[in-house]
């Protein structure tokens, strides 16, 4: 029998992998992919709660999350392309002009 905890633990580990990706990788595309992983882990827990609580709210929320994630990816990648044209780099470390 699968319990809620199964899904939540899976979600937690997936989320942590996403965070690790954001914190560890220099390539900004991989960072964006890690963000997608985090979105997915949250979706899993939302859907799991929705399922085990016999409610629809979580599922509806997942729909919204996916939409927002799609929008985020579109804008994020567009920014990435624009930045790459300017700076010829995809390494986050080299994009630190904001501190000045």
């Amino acid at each position: 029998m699968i319990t809620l905890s199964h899904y939540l633990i899976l979600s937690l580990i997936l989320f942590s992998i996403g965070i690790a990706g954001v914190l560890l990788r220099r390539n900004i595309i991989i960072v964006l992919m890690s963000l997608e992983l985090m979105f997915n882990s949250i979706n899993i827990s939302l859907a799991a709660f929705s399922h085990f609580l016999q409610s629809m709210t979580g599922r509806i929320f997942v729909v919204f999350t996916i939409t927002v994630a799609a929008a985020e990816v579109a804008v994020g990648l567009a920014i990435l392309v624009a930045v790459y044209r300017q700076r010829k780099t995809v390494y986050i470390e080299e994009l630190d002009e904001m501190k000045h």
Partner: protein
Amino acid sequence: MVSWLILFIPLIAAVLITFVTRKQKDLSSYVSIGAVVLCFILSIDPILTLLKDPHMKPVEQGFSWINIPGLHVEIGTLLDPLSILMLFVVTFVGSLIHIYSRGYMHGEHGYSRFFACMSLFIFSMLGIVLANNFIQIYIFWELVGLSSYLLIGYYFEKPSASDAAKKAFLVNRVGDFGFILGIFVLFQATGTFNFIEINHILEKGGIPESTIYIAALLIFCGAIGKSAQFPLHVWLPDAMEGPTPVSALIHAATMVAAGVYLLARTSLLYHFSPDAMEVVAYIGGFTALLAAVIAVAQNDIKRVIAYSTLSSLGYMVMAMGVGGMTAGMFYLTTHAFFKALLFLAAGSVIHALHTQDIWEMGDVFKKLKTTGTTFILGSLAMAGVFPFSGFWSKDEILTIAFTSHHYFLFTIGILVAFVSAFFMTRLVFVTFFGKGRYHGHPHESPSVMTVPLVILAFFAVVAGFAGMPWIEPNFGSYIAGPLHGGHGEHGFNLFVAGLSTAVVIAGIALGYIVYCKELKSDPLAKNVLYNLAHNKFYFDEFYDNIIVAKVYNGIGRICNFAEVNFIIIFFVNGFAYLTRETGKVLRLTTTGKLQHYALVMVAGVVVLVLFFGVL
């Protein structure tokens, strides 16, 4: 509702004059006069209510201004016999003086400014009169200080006028500092600013007498400043630099009486602290005597009247101190009439002769019949001759001093009555009779000035009858009723009345003997005492050379030393150093690297979950 209207009409007038009718001088004066006359008409209704029912309940209207736990401040109005009386005095005398000003100030530049300031003053004064709590009275207390400053400094291009304005303001500040401290002490003890609530709490008892004593003395500081009592009396004579109607309205009839009004308002406080009352009484008595003696040796017609005002204020304060709240208020009322009259008549003389030195006047009675007659009537009232108003009010104060066994103060009062009669006689004879020492051709003032004189003269003569001890109900029964501080009834003491009449007659006789001659200068000028008094007992010099030069500059030097050696090193430079060093450390955190920030964020999440989710 009416009280709010009365309060705000002068403010509206002041704003209107400042922003709309500034260029049209005539219109400005009409707006200002209209406002104060309207206030008078509106206050007739409360006056009639009071006259119908001497035991009327105080009508209080207020709304919350600041309401936080532990502090409740309201803005409100209080109509009780005391404030209705002051309402009458302020609006009635104010109306006449405004009308008079229209003639007196004719042709002055800044005519509109004058009337705007006058309206502002009426607003502030009514604010004091109608206030139902200490914070409000303090705000308006400062506002009358401001309007007084503006009006004393009306001729601001004259250095003496602007200096006098600054002096009045700063000296008042000294007293007001004590006043606000007193309010705080009282608030700490009672937890409220409202007069009626404070009175209830005081009646219930339970507040230690030492607290009441301190609060009463500190609040008295405010009265000392505003009513120009010793040792802060130095500003009032200098305030005569302002136009004469200002001297009449602010520095004789109303504003300086605010201190006395404050004492009457808080009379219950003094009732519970006999020690504080003693202090009040002796300061008042001393001021009365000091000012009366100085008045003898002054040569400026306005300064003589100013010192007589000081003396009268001392009298009122003394009355408050010996427990005669109603007597003090009665004297305040009659004083408002005859002193406003004296100032306005003096203004009329100045208007005609273009000088203020009484030794450049003389023998003008024939030319200035109306002015002269009204001035003499006012002088008789001031001197306290039977049956003029001054006699009744002074008699009441003396009776209380006598019956409450303050024999020393009673003696001072008798002495002051004698000296007052003497210097008023001197003023009248030197100004209006004797040898003509004036230049030019004086002529009587226009009727816009003389009509208010006649009306005021009428009241100066008859107002005293309201306080005759054997009519019922008289002045005292209206005012004393709901306020428990003062003794309501005073009998008529034949000994006191006889003695005061005798010394007044003696004073007038002495004045007649000395001054009813063809004189060129003061025959007493060689006298040592005269010189002392002429120089105001060197109070100004004392303040300038000792207080300011030694004490004040000494404190300044200590402060400078402390600032240079401690404040700057430890605080100014210390904080700068601290900020710079902190910045150096904190700068390390601003790396501009996105993932550093993300790491800190996640670590923060871990800590937050640890604290709020798990532990």
